[in-house]
C-alpha cells in the first residue's frame, strides 16, 4: 500500500508561507512573469487591496518577493517580483507537494 510509505515529515516539510491559497496564487502569478504591479496582482487574484497587501507583507518578510515603490506621473506605484530565493522556494514547494500527493494517491 503506497500510503503506508508516506512519512508525515514530508507533509510537515511543505513551506508554510507558500502553503496558503492566496499567497500561492500570488507566487504562481509572479513566477510566470518578469514582474507585475499591485493592481495587476489584484486584478488577477481577485483579492481586495488590504488582503493582498497583508499577504505581500508575509512574502516580503520571507524574502520571497521584492517590492519596489516609486512615483509614476505623481502617483504611487508598487512593482513586485519574485526574488531568486522566492523562485527556488516555489520550485521546492512544488517538488515537495508533488511527492506528498504521489504518496497519498
Amino acid at each position, binding site marked *: 500500500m503506497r500510503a503506508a510509505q508516506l512519512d508525515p515529515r514530508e507533509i510537515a516539510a511543505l513551506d508554510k508561507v507558500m502553503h496558503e491559497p492566496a499567497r500561492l496564487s500570488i507566487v504562481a502569478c509572479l513566477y*510566470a512573469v518578469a514582474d507585475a504591479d*499591485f493592481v495587476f496582482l489584484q*486584478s488577477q487574484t481577485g483579492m481586495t*487591496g488590504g488582503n*493582498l*497587501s497583508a499577504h505581500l507583507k508575509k512574502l516580503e518578510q520571507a524574502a520571497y518577493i521584492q517590492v519596489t515603490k516609486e512615483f509614476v506621473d505623481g502617483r*504611487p506605484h508598487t512593482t513586485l517580483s519574485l526574488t531568486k530565493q522566492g523562485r527556488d522556494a516555489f520550485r521546492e514547494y512544488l517538488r515537495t507537494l508533488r511527492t506528498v500527493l504521489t504518496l497519498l494517491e
Partner: protein
Amino acid sequence: MTNGIRGIESRIYQAYWQDGSTDLVLGLVVFLSGLVWALGYFAAAIAFWAAATPAWLLLRQRIVEPRLGRVRFAPRRTGRLRIGFMGAIAVGLGVLALVVTLGWSPEAARWMAPAIPSLIMGMMAAVLGAAAEVGRFGLYAGWFVLTGLVIAAMGGEPGVALLVGGLVPAGAGALMLRRFLKDFPPLSDGEAE
C-alpha cells in the same frame, strides 16, 4: 517551467490582449486611413499610422492599466512579440516592394491594385496575431483579404476597401473595451497608500 505554470502564464498573456484596445486602435487606424484615402488625401493616412502606437500606449496607460494593472512578461514573450511587430512591418513592406518592383501582368495588376493595401493589412494582422498568439487577429486578417478582393472585384477604390476592412476590428475592439470597462472597475495601488 511546469505545464501548470505555463498555463498560468498563457492565461495572463491572453488576458493582456482581451481589453480590446489593440483591436480598436488597429481598426480605427485602418478605417481612418481608408477614409482619407477615399477622400483623396492619401498622405494624411501616414499621420494616422504614425499616431497609432502612441494612441495605443495612451489608451492602455489611461484606461486599461488602472483596471488591469501593469505586467512585464518574460524575455521569451517580449522577444517573440518584438519579432512579430518587426515581422509584420517587414512582411507589409516586402509585399509592397514585390508588387512595385516585380509586378504582375498589367491586367492582373490593374484588377488587383485596389486590393493590395488590404492584402498587406491582412498579412500584417496574420503575422502580428501569430506572434501575439491572439486568434482573432487571424480572423481580421481574413476579413481584410476578403474586403480587399471583393472591393477590387467590384471595381472599388483601395481606400474604400480599407474603410470597410477597418470597421470589423474597430467594432469588435469597441465592444470588447466596453465589456472590459464593465467587468474591471478601476483599482488603486493599496500597497502604496
